[in-house]
């Protein structure tokens, strides 16, 4: 085992949303399949919700990658909060309207009626909780025309249950909730991720006890797990280069996991 392995392992857990990094887990695969099936149905809106770090963005990215070849699809990773900009973006992507003039809701509705498409295009909206209620209501009206279909990903916050909101209750025909990983799923997730990058030695370092500790610290949240493990391998890398005698390269050290947790703020010390 050399320091480059730790470097590679560290890079595996970089917090990026890349469809290549998608890890197939049984439960996640089932959910993903149900999302794919929902997209094919004649639904107006599909809601994908869950706590931050449960893989909503990854789902949308993966869906975009998988379906974009067969279906007209546009993925808005960041919310376009300005209404005119939002309509302009839709007009540009769907109808190739390259006009710098402002576009209002009536104009975009007219545009949609004039340019009817054989297949209903799909727009994926990530972080949709940032859209205002007014804007969300206009998105609902757009979907009501059945000329456009939306997949909306948003955070399920504790303060307000977004599904309970009227415009979602009445319009959404399909809602899919994403949850944190279970302990067993987390182990598979970590090891699969490492093995994908050929970091087999690193993958073998994780015992059930260390997975249990990671699960305790991250509560199975994928984003937190990625952050934590990136820091873990960063610390390993440092010890390997500066003080090799302090680490056991065969077994994941709980001390280092806890140190990493302190570093990323999962432990308040």
């Amino acid at each position, binding site marked *: 085992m050399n320091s480059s392995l730790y470097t590679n392992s560290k890079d595996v857990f970089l917090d990026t949303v890349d469809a290549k990094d998608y890890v197939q887990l049984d439960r996640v695969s089932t959910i993903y399949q149900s999302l794919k099936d929902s997209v094919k149905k004649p639904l107006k809106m599909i809601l994908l919700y869950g706590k931050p770090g449960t893989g909503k963005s990854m789902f949308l990215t993966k869906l975009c990658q998988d379906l974009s070849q067969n279906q007209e699809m546009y993925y808005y990773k960041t919310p376009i909060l300005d209404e005119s900009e939002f309509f302009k973006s839709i007009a540009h992507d769907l109808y190739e309207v390259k006009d710098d003039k402002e576009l209002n809701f009536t104009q975009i509705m007219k545009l949609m009626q004039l340019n009817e498409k054989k297949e209903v295009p799909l727009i994926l909206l990530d972080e949709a909780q940032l859209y205002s209620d007014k804007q969300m209501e206009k998105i609902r009206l757009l979907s009501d025309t059945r000329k456009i279909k939306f997949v909306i990903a948003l955070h399920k916050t504790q303060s307000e249950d977004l599904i309970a909101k009227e415009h979602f209750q009445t319009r959404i025909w399909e809602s899919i909730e994403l949850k944190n990983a279970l302990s067993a799923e987390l182990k598979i997730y970590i090891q699969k991720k490492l093995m994908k990058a050929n970091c087999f030695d690193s993958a073998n370092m994780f015992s059930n006890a260390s997975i249990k500790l990671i699960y305790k610290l991250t509560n199975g949240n994928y984003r937190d797990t990625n952050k934590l493990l990136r820091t873990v391998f*960063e*610390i390993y890398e*440092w010890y390997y280069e500066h003080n090799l005698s302090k680490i056991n390269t065969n077994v994941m050290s709980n001390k280092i996991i*806890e140190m990493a947790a*302190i570093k990323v703020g999962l432990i308040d*010390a």
Partner: protein
Amino acid sequence: MRNIHDLEKRWFRYKLKSFIPHVLISLMVVISIALILSVFNKQLANKSSEVILLNNKEQKVVATKIIEEVKVAPIKPQITLKEIKKEATKAIHKSEKKLTLTPSLDFIKSIRTSSTESYNTNDFQQTQKKEIPKKKIIRYKQAVQQNQEKNIFIQKQETQSDIDHVIKRFHKNNNPVLSLFIAKKYYKLGDYKQSYNYALLTNQINNGIEQSWIIFVKSLMQLHKKEQAINILKSYIQHSKSANAKVLLDNIQSGKFK
């Protein structure tokens, strides 16, 4: 990563912090167990000390009672024949009311002559004549004196001196327990006349002592007064329904008595 040492320090502090609740909880548990045990032990100790104190108190109470009884019990320096005679007549009066059996007290004279010179025989004889029927009076004065002299030589000096001591005590306090004891001793020693006399005296003082009547009857039997013994025993059985007396009567009548 440059701040590994700082991270190590923070981790060390975190571990210390995380161990503190465990240490505190264990300490609390240990302390609470120790407290419970000490309280439990104290309660046990208190209970045992209370028991000891109670025992001591009880012992003190018993001791004080005994002392009081000893103090209360009158110790008469001297008993005159008059006093004995009065008490005897009182006892006879009582016994006459309840019992038809009233044996003779003439033998008292023999005791008087052997023990005290200040006995008033006339008064005593008068009361005897008044209270006790003549038929039942038996005089053994001379025989008693002879037997006493003989027994002094036959029996061990210790036994005789013991009896003498008890006789002296009896003369002082006129206690029927002592006279019964003397009667039994004499019966054991084979001095049936003396045992008869003391049993009779006991019966006169207290006619409710079963042992005294049995010794009295046995002594009569040993003195070959079978008919008289049977009569007296029958009267006593009629009065007291004593099982032991019945057994003795059966033994006498069947000839088993030796």
